[in-house]
């Protein structure tokens, strides 16, 4: 036991290697075991399944027994009309979420920081954060209250101004906007609070000296707050860019569901993979699309991490 207190004395030479470390800290390793096993089973053991992308997977024959089919599954996806549509929708929606979401939450954070009434800030924050805790299913119901054909609020407003009722759930052209609005509704408040935490971390004396030098509020925001918050904004944006190929399945499926009429603007890679797996029932094709998505995703993660590392090394993931 006494020996285990100062392992540093061994001076980095792994005399007995990992087994002696386990023997010495056996209770510690025991505590770690469930988490290691969980990740091993649900992450590492799932990697071999990825080869079914190159096979014609058959539940009876299993992963190894199924026959190879080369890149047929990839060809099928990339040559289908769906490929372009789902890739475009995933990218467009995610880009809009990042751009509009960041702009809105940054703006809100700066305003919240400037407001003097603490009660007002507390109250509005309480309201702003609330949607973040709701599941997309519940948000789907709230959306229904607004855009429902017969009774919805939106159509009541439209008809009030003399327009004709719009059948929202069959018109794809409105849905990019609706989805961006719902994303803002759910997450902009929470992100604003995160940015606000970064802003409040800025040294107060910088503002004081700027005020003494005669800077007005607008100048203080533009010249102090914005530049000093930029590293945080850039890191969070780049992390989001790294995930740009991965759509929000929960959001799309709960808000839109299997509404074929809306696929034109709402169908994303993740919902498409889900349908190929669970409705068409073809795991190999679904895997091929997923692998394509993961590979581009990995390139994006590594690429954005590289950029973060170059610009602000402290923000890099690895």
């Amino acid at each position, binding site marked *: 036991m006494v020996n285990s207190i100062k*392992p540093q004395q061994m001076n980095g030479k792994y005399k007995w290697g990992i087994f002696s470390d386990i023997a010495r800290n056996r209770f510690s390793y025991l505590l*770690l075991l469930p988490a290691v096993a969980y990740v091993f089973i649900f992450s590492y053991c799932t*990697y071999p399944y990825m080869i079914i992308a190159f096979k014609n997977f058959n539940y009876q024959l299993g992963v190894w027994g199924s026959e190879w089919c080369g890149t047929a599954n990839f060809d099928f996806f990339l040559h289908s009309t769906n490929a372009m549509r789902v890739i475009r929708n995933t990218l467009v929606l995610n880009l809009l979420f990042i751009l509009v979401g960041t702009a809105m939450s940054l703006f809100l954070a700066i305003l919240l920081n400037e407001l003097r009434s603490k009660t007002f*800030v507390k109250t509005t924050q309480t309201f702003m954060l609330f949607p973040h805790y709701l599941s997309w299913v519940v948000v789907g119901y709230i959306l229904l209250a607004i855009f429902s054909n017969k009774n*919805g609020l939106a159509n009541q407003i439209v008809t009030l101004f003399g327009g004709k009722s719009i059948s929202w759930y069959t018109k794809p052209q409105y849905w990019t906007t609706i989805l961006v609005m719902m994303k803002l509704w759910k997450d902009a408040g929470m992100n604003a609070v995160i940015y606000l935490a970064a802003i409040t971390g800025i040294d107060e004396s910088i503002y004081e000296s700027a005020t003494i030098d005669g800077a007005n509020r607008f100048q203080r925001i533009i010249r102090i707050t914005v530049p000093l918050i930029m590293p945080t904004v850039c890191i969070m944006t780049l992390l989001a860019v790294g995930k740009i190929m991965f759509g929000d*399945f929960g959001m799309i499926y709960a808000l839109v*569901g299997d509404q074929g009429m809306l696929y034109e603007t709402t169908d994303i890679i993740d919902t498409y993979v889900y349908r190929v797996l669970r409705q068409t029932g073809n*795991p190999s094709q679904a895997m091929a699309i997923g692998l394509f998505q993961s590979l581009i995703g990995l390139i994006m993660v590594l690429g954005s991490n590289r950029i973060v590392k170059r610009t602000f090394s402290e923000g890099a993931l690895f």
Partner: protein
Amino acid sequence: MVAQKSKLNRLNAGDYAMYIFVGLFALFCMIPMLLAISVSFSDEASISRYGYRFIPSAWSTEAYSLIFNGSSSVMQGMLISILTTFVGTLGALVITASAAYTLSNRNVRYRNQLSFYFFIPMTFGAGLVPWYLMCNALGLRNNFGALIIPSLLFSPFNLFLVRNYMSGLPNELREAACIDGATDITIFVKIYLPLCKPVLATVALFYGLAYWNDWWNAIMLVEDKKLYPLQYLLLQLKSQIQMIKDMQRMTGGAAAGGRAPSESLKMATSLITIGPIVLLYPLLQKYFVKGLVVGSVKG
């Protein structure tokens, strides 16, 4: 009141614009909620005549009395949701906290390599299909375990959150206990767990909310209607009017009321899933936000 007024007098146009913008955004966040609440208390006939209103022309609590009738499928879903949330959160908390202890233990020489072991899956996941096939291979299909074990029982993000907190505790605590002959398990349970209450509260809320709001496991792995958690039941309810009719037949609502309160029932069902969130809201405000801020700003 007077003091507040004099303070307001010093505000200029820019201040007003800021207050108005922030206030409007807060309203934008709350208004749809208010609409849903109002619809859930509306009389069915008034909905079909006037549409959804913020102030219903005729109030009714029929939707809620249908739900809480006891024999409804919503009550069954609620039971499943509560059970999964409770068991899942407890399990996840134990797994995460104990792993975090080891990763913060400076006597464990390979803790950094082990951290990396947990980090790789965060960056590169195999995706939906391998996960689905793995769950099938493990027999996590159509049973209670399928709702609890896959996806949610452990999250590396939470692990690192707890580890960072534990690493901030003085190492002397462990050394002193170690000299007194305590094993790592005793140190973890008797010393570290009590000291880590704030971060454990944060992580418990993360896990708890994820379990409560989850329908992913249900949609992928569960076909048995008896096992549907509340969220998935809601998703089904949205498209299946039939289910509402079944519910009403079971509870005798349609026979008694004449007109079925399907519109208000939908909103009421979605709102009762928010109930626990509202109850825990002060805690969420205190711990959840702090955890998110630490997790995302400091990475």
